[in-house]
């Protein structure tokens, strides 16, 4: 049976916590066979999702909470980033590249999350919040190591 491990962190909706969040999640994910490149991609996914929660979910209010739940099952990594903010009215529109309500934001947050994960799902209810679920596998690296060894 595959080994299972779990991490839950909840922190204030402050941009100062972005670095802590992505480093903590990447350190947790490093327990399985991810490459350095893949761990950097996980950091980007966390940074983008938490930034969205702070900026869009809470409109930069510092008194709210962002919750991250990460699970390792064998060589599979599952990640949930959740806020209890205003939610997303039109998820399809929010996921379009370059969609942004601000001229200096590139609207690439979901593009990066989707590109760097193998599975992405967004659950959002207006005035209730948003949960982004992402999965990424390190199994192919295990296979490569097995073959080369």
């Amino acid at each position, binding site marked *: 049976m595959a080994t299972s491990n779990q991490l839950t962190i909840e922190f204030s909706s402050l941009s100062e916590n972005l*670095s802590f969040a992505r480093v903590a999640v990447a350190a947790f994910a490093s327990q399985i066979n991810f490459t350095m490149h893949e761990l950097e*991609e996980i*950091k*980007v996914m966390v*940074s983008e999702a938490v*930034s969205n929660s702070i900026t869009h979910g809470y409109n930069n209010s510092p008194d709210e909470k962002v919750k991250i739940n990460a699970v390792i099952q064998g060589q599979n990594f599952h990640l949930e980033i959740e806020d209890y903010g205003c939610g997303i009215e039109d998820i399809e529109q929010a996921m379009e590249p370059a969609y942004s309500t601000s001229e200096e934001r590139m609207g690439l947050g979901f593009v990066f999350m989707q590109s760097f994960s193998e599975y992405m799902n967004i659950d959002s209810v207006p005035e209730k919040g948003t949960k982004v679920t992402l999965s990424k596998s390190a199994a192919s690296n295990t296979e490569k190591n097995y073959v080369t060894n």
Partner: protein
Amino acid sequence: MQLHTSIENHTLVINLYGDIDMSVTENLRSTLEEKLDNEPVSNLLIDLSNVEFIDSSGLGVILGRYNRITRSGGKVILTGLKPQVRNVMELSGLLRIMEEYSSTGEALSNIS
């Protein structure tokens, strides 16, 4: 994040240090705007050799300055891209519209 600025060959040279995410972008944006308002430069060179991490909020700041500089006929040049930075830059399409050199010296010698 920290930054160091200088002016060489009509170019504002920005050396960035540290991670670039939403926690620093407002400060970075206002600092760059102030420099561009007050210095008679044509081009902007951003040295990222001491930046290990950047996300879309950081790319947005660079794109905003690119729009400003190119409107007046200047160039935005990037140097010293580390693997993570290059990965998101490529995915964003910014590397298709900006010039890139391996070092600041090489970039400055190629600015016409």
